């Protein structure tokens, strides 16, 4: 099992969710986050006072997938979240030791 973390542009969330559903991913967790990478911050101006806002708003998605689903899931996110412009985001993959469905007590891939 793998834990896949994708940081994407907020307006791409619905497209990514749809793409993941189509490849059979049944669940995900979504957070609104801020951060910066190659895409720098932006300036805000209030009555002549200029502020540099370093962090960009992004959406972080976490998806637990079986090893066999991983490539399809990565491809789905990449296709759906890409705009070709700087700041499209990143995907990180990490090993996942265990998963448990609380209601039934199922474990491993059965719990996904």
């Amino acid at each position: 099992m793998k834990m896949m973390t994708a940081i994407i542009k907020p307006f791409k969330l619905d497209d990514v969710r749809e793409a993941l559903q189509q490849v059979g991913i049944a669940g995900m967790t979504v957070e609104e986050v801020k951060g910066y990478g190659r895409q720098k911050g932006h300036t805000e101006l209030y009555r002549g006072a200029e502020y540099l806002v370093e962090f960009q708003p992004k959406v972080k998605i976490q998806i637990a997938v079986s090893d066999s689903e991983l490539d399809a899931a990565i491809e789905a996110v990449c296709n759906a979240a890409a705009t070709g412009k700087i700041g499209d985001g990143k995907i990180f993959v990490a090993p996942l030791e265990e998963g448990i469905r609380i209601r039934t007590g199922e474990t491993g891939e059965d719990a996904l």
Partner: protein
Amino acid sequence: MKKLQQFALLTAVGLASNGASAQELNQADTAWMLTATALVLFMTIPGLSLFYSGLVRAKNVLSVLMQCFALTCLMSLLWFAVGYTIAFGSDGVEQGAFIGDFGNVFFASMTMDSLNGGIPSTLFAIFQMTFAIITPALIVGGFAERMRFSAMLMFSAIWLIVVYAPVCHWVWGGGWLGSMGLQDFAGGTVVHITAAVAALVAAVMMGPRRGFGTVAMPPHNLTLTVAGAGMLWVGWFGFNAGSAVAADNSAAMAMLVTHLSASAGSLAWMAMEWIRHGKPSVLGIVTGMVAGLGTITPASGSVGPAAAVVIGLTAGVVCYFATGWIKNKLKIDDSLDVFPVHGVGGILGTLLAGVFCSTQLGVFSGNGFSDGINSIGGQLVVQATGVVATFAYTAVVTWIILKVVDVMVGLRVDADEETQGLDLVLHDERGYDL
């Protein structure tokens, strides 16, 4: 009749339409002035309160609302006690050049039946009370986010009595500036210059908020600010058109020029930001509105609609540059930009009233010079005298009051209290528990 002559500027047309029977109750005037009074109170609570509260950081939202609300209550009682009589004195008493007589302490010489022109004396007194409320409330923007609440109450109370009431007397109560022929229909000098100079002096004396210039202090809720701005615009109709003290052609023209100047000021500020920064901002357009309204205020009984558009456009551009200058060049932390908007606007409007009151300017003509003055130059000298006198007196006396209050209770909260936010520290409350 002496009293009536003193109100000639305020009620010039009103008295004419009332004819000889000026001392009979005019129900039309009374109905309008009751309405206008409510509109002007509406400007402070909730208009200005919301406008200001959205501009501060979330940790100080309640402190600003509280300041405006408490000032409304305290200024009302003080106006009733002594403010009104210092400003306007009592009927039938010859008024001095600098302060009114003390016959109306606690409105002592008013009864339910006494009249001031065509309206009840009590109505004129409470209409003016709403001006005495909003003027100290405007100053809040200068010292927002760092002043101790007790110091704020003490300062404002003394300031109303020794700054606002006397200046009000000079201009509207039969004092020396009004007698000179100063055209200040609704308070460019009395309200906007006094409030703005006091805000500037307070900002300089108290020093900037912690982190000013290095830490971002963006408005925490511009939706509140825009809602408040809309209320201010509507309420300003009562402020300016109510200053005719009559339901007449002067009031109607004041309302028209007020509206046009607000519109022009809004668009001018918006355009400046669009040109210079690439985007038109919401805060920019509403700030331009306040600039347009503040600037037309002294001129609203003197000028015609075409001049009002010029005044509004000028206000939007000049106040825009003044705001950047005070903040970025002089590094003065007038937290909510009271001086560059209200002060610069009030000065500009008072001076432009002296130009556009001329009847010789074609489509830009106004309602004429004051009695005994027959040139733009002559009127401008009087207008400039009003500006300089109001500015200097307010600056000096405000400085003294702040020194005294500082010694008595301390003007500013501690550094860590300021970091925590005034809502929790001074009021044990939070504006948002989300």
